Every structure is written in C-alpha cells, then in structure tokens.
C-alpha cells in the first residue's frame, strides 16, 4: 500500500470535470484508489462518490492506492491533482 498527502489546487474544487478525469484515470488500474478527506474514505474510481464528497480548493487529501500496480496508480492520480486538472 502506498499513499501521498496532497492539497487540492484547482480553484473550482473537485467539480464534475476533474472528478470525471480522476475517476477514469483511477479506473484504469487494478489497484484500489481511495481519497481520504475529512476523515472519510472516498472511492476514487467513482465519479459520484468524488463529487458527493464536496472537496474544495485548499482542502487537504490523502491518496491511498493498494494493489499490484499501486505505484503507477498513485503516480498518475497524484500528478492529476498536483496539475490542478489543467485549470
């Protein structure tokens, strides 16, 4: 299991488009992708779960990936968050 702490940088927060991008990126991997936010575990492969968590700009999150390709999964998903989803 690998994990990384991050801060959401895109101004609009985790709205639908970044959530879609993130969920589809996470979905490619066999490993589980979990976003820890505000004491809750959010399934990073579920668009609806991500949006429902209402993660805003400046919020701290932790990405936790667990499985055979966990390193690759964490690398790609954390890169997405750090890039601010191109916003």
């Amino acid at each position: 299991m690998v994990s990384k702490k991050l801060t959401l940088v895109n101004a609009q927060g985790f709205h639908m488009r970044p959530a879609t991008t993130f969920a589809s990126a996470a979905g490619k991997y066999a490993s589980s992708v979990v976003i820890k936010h505000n004491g809750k575990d959010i399934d990073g492969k579920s668009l609806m779960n991500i949006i429902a968590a209402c993660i805003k700009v400046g919020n701290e999150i932790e990405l936790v990936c667990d499985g055979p390709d966990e390193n690759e999964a964490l690398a790609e998903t954390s890169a997405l968050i750090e890039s601010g989803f191109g916003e």
Partner: protein
Amino acid sequence: MRITDLLKKQGVLLGETPKSKEEAIDILVSLHEKCGNLSDVSAFKDGILKREEMGTTAIGMEVAIPHAKSEAVKHPALTAITVPDGVDYGAPDGNDCKLIFMIAATTDGDVHLEVLARLMQMLMDEAFTSQLKAAKSVEEFLQIIDAKETEKFPDEVKEEKGEEKGYRVLAVTACPTGIAHTYMAAEALAKAGEQLGVSIKVETNGSGGSKNVLTAEEIANCDGIIIAADKSVETARFDGKPVYSTKVADGIHKPEELINKIINKEVPVFHSDKKADAAETTQNESFGRKLYKHLMNGVSHMLPFVVAGGIFIAIAFLIDTIMGVKMDGNFGSVTPAAAWFKTIGGYAFNFMLPILAGFIAMSIADRPGLLVGIVGGLLASNGATFADPGAGKTIPSGFLGALLAGFIAGWLMKMLEKLCDKLPRALEGIKPVLIYPLAGLGIVGVMMCAVNPIMGVINTAVSDGVSEMSKNPALIIPLCALLAGMMAIDMGGPFNKAAYVTATGLLASGTNAAYIIMGAVMIGGMVPPIAIALSTTFFKNRWTAEERKNGPVNYIMGLSFITEGAIPYAAGHPLQVIPSCIIGSATAGALAALFKCTLMAPHGGIFVLATIGNALYYFLSLAIGAVVGMLLLALFMKKKKA
C-alpha cells in the same frame, strides 16, 4: 443551501420527449429562463454547450447534470426534467438518460460545488432516482427530493424548523448615546450566533428609537434573553424567561460567552416584579424627551467649538487692548497676533451651527443624517438663497434656522430611509454612499434656500421699524430695551443682526443718541452668556454636569461681547433660556439708556472700556440685567433630580 430552495415548481417538467441531447438542453435552459434565473439566455446556453464539449455531464445511472458557471446567471438555481423514454446523452455506461438536472451557478462562491455534491449524494441512492423518474406530478417530484434531503441532512432541517418557530436566543443592546456601541454589540452577537449555529435576533435600542423589536411570540418561544446595555431597557416583557443582563461592552467583546450562557441554561429566570423600577422603559419615551435627546446630541458636539473659538476671540481683544490700538471697527484684529487669534477663533465659530445641525440630524437618522444636517446648518449660518447661493448679501437665519435644519434634515433622512426600503436589494450598497447623500443634499439645499429669504424679510421689516423709532428722541429708552432684547432673541439670526446693524449704522452719524444705542446693543449681547454663567454658578441643580462645566467660560465670553457663548444653552432649552435672556438683556439695555451710557466702539465688550461713557453705571446695568436673567432662568428651568 437546500436543493428545494433552488428548484422551483416552474423549473420542473415531467414526461418530456427530446429527440437529442441538444433538445434536452434547450428545454432545461428555457426552464431557467422561465424562472427568471438568467440575465443572458444565449450566453448561459453557450456555457452549457462549452462544458458538454469538454466531456459529457452524464454520470451514469440514467442521470445527467449539465451545468455552467456564468456571469449570465442572476442567482444560483436548478431545473429538472424526466425523460421516460430516455435520450442519448453520451453517457459513459452507454445508457440513455432519463433524469436530467441543470445547474445554473453564479461565478462567485462555492454554491456550484456544494449543490453538485449534495445532488450527487442523494442520487447515489438508486431507490431515490427511480422514485424521481416515476414521479407522477411536479409536486410529488419536489416532495421526494425534500424528503430525501431531510433524511440525508437532518441537522440542518432542525435548525431551519427552529427558525420558522422563532429564535433560540434573543438579545437587546443599548448604550447611553445610542449611536455606536448599541449597533456594534448587535452585530457581534448576530455574528457569534451564526458561528455557533444558534438562531438569534437582536433588538437595538439606539438613539433613533428601537429597531428589530422583539415580539411577544418570539419572547415566548426563545430559550433566553441577553440584555447588553448601559442604560435601562424595558424588561417587564421578559417576565418568566431566563434573562442575563450585562454591560454593552460584553456584547461586543464576548458575545459567544453570553450566547453559551443562555444555551447551557446557566441563567436564572427573571421575574419582572423583582426589579420593576429597573424596568423603566426607554421605548415609551415621550416625543418631547426624544426631541431633547436629539437637541443635546447637537449641543454637546457644538460646545467645544464655541468654547475654544470664544476664548480665542477674547484673547484677540485682550492683545489689541494691551497694544493700545484705536478702538474702531477693526478692534480685535489690528495687531497681527490679535488678527491671528481672531481669525482662527472665527473659524471655530463658523463650524458651530453646521455641527449643531449635523449632530441633531445624526441623532435622529444615524449616519445618513450627518451630511444633510451639516450642510443645512451651514446654509442657515451663511443665509444662502436661490438668488444668492453664495450668500453675499443675505441675512442668515442663524441658530434658530440651524435648529430647524438639523431636525428637518434628520426626519427627512429617516423618511428617505423608509422610502428606500422598497428599492431593489441590489441597490442596497449604493444607498448610503450615493442615494441618501444626493437626495438629502438636494432637499436640504432647496429647503434652506426657501427659509433664509423669510428671515431676510423679517430682518428688513425690523430694521425699518427700528430706524424709524431712532428718529424720535423721546423713544430712546424703549428703543434701547427693544434692541438689547433683540440681541438675545436669536444670537446671530435676523433679529440680532437687525439690532446690531442698526446700531453700527447709526454710529457713523456720531450723535450722542447713536452712542447710547450702540451701548445698549452691546449690553444686550453681553447679558445672555453672563446670565447663564451666573445661573450655572448659583443654581447648579438646573443644569447637567457638562453644562455646569462650561459655565465659567461664559463669564469670559459675556464680558467680551461674544453672545454665541449662550447658544449651546439656548439650543438645549430654547423655551426657558431665550425668554430669560431677552428680558435680562432688555432690562440692561433700558437701564444703560436711562443712565445715558455711551459707547463709541462697535464691539469688544469689557476690552473697549475706555470708549464707554459713564462706565460704572454701564456695568451696573449689565450686572442687573444678568441677575434678572439668572433669576428668570432659575424660575423657568426645572430642577434636576439630585
């Protein structure tokens, strides 16, 4: 922000049959338009389409949520349609969409994200989405959403229901002047309530009367009442409720603590009979009492101007006396040092009436009144008219005009504030910076330019009458009594000016009668401050502490022939002070004329002693007049409670 607040009945259509994604979008956009949520329909639609180009907003489970954040949105809103036969929305799971919500978000704030998140949390429940898809009527559709939201976010519903019933905590704030602290405490309490998630309503007992008054029903339903006040407030109405009384400063500095005291039930129940005395109401203040309070607010702010300016002018006379200059019309500003004191003192005097009127108006109408009152007071003090707005030749309406200006400006602004309540909320921000000042300035300008010429007419009539009288030597004593009395009527207004101008005008003729008249006029202007000073010395219980403190200065001003020293007192108690002063002045004037006292200098008071003929009797007349004024003041003014 609840979904059901954003989604109106007219914003929902059931059983739609769009052939394509574009048609579905058209329907939802037009629903937003129908609800009046948009300022620019095509710009909003462009935003929606642009978002769809970046990727479909279909989220699976036969649901799509097209959305746009746009300047074209007036306020955050939702619309929804159901499509029983489904429409191809390019969903990732390949299914047609049967339930579509469209979010219109404003560009500020996180409402967009919050609505999206909340909608999503609810839509994750499949039973909920299938219920929505099967809804038979719009009412049913909204009811399903409301029920689900209530189930999902119970805390919030409790709070909102609480608000429907009333407020958990009530508060009353008040301070003696009722201008700043009352409102600061109210704001602090309201903010703290919001932070603690406690519904609170705060009544302010300010100088403009009570605002946001608590109703009997609200009092009955609340948990308890906070009283943050430095003066008595009406408490009888709180009988049987927990009441916590404290200083207004606590309301400003520790509002959370106060609210928690009520919430944690640390406060004993209040019984009004226990301190019925303390329940002296400020709400039932009589009209007269309110008038007095406004008046005193103006007077207390004006006092420093009068005192400092008056002493400066007296110093100017003193310097010229020491330098031994010629005692003519320029006396008091001949030597450069005297001129400096006289000019600076004069500037302080120039502010006297504007400050008086400004702070009366501010006491009535809060800050919006200030500008209107100050300008009104200035117009009264320089006598502007429509024909002569620069007031080069006209007669000022003086301090009586300034009083009028202050009260009218205050009431006017209060009316204006009431009228402006009906304006759209969007204009709220520009009301205090643009609408009130602009409208107020215009109205007060028109009003005072209309009042001043009336004063001019009075002045002319009086002047004509007086100069007619002065031609008859037999009438010299009554004339002198009249002129001296006139000096005390308005202390700078049309009567005073008429008397003074008549006397100085006659001075040029150089006759003995003219010198006698001049002497009477000056004595008439010297009596009021001295009478008041004597009264504050010997009849202390007629005056407030502040009025007593400023009493001694009036000896100096009176002896210097600076009648203005009496204005703060006359403004504060016009009905008592003015008649007393008039009679005192008239007595002194008549006596001075009887003793044939003469005066060759137009002003200067005691400093032009050398030009006074029969000086001893002159001062005797002055003393008698002042004592008469003092005794009358003692008679007319009510004794203050110890």
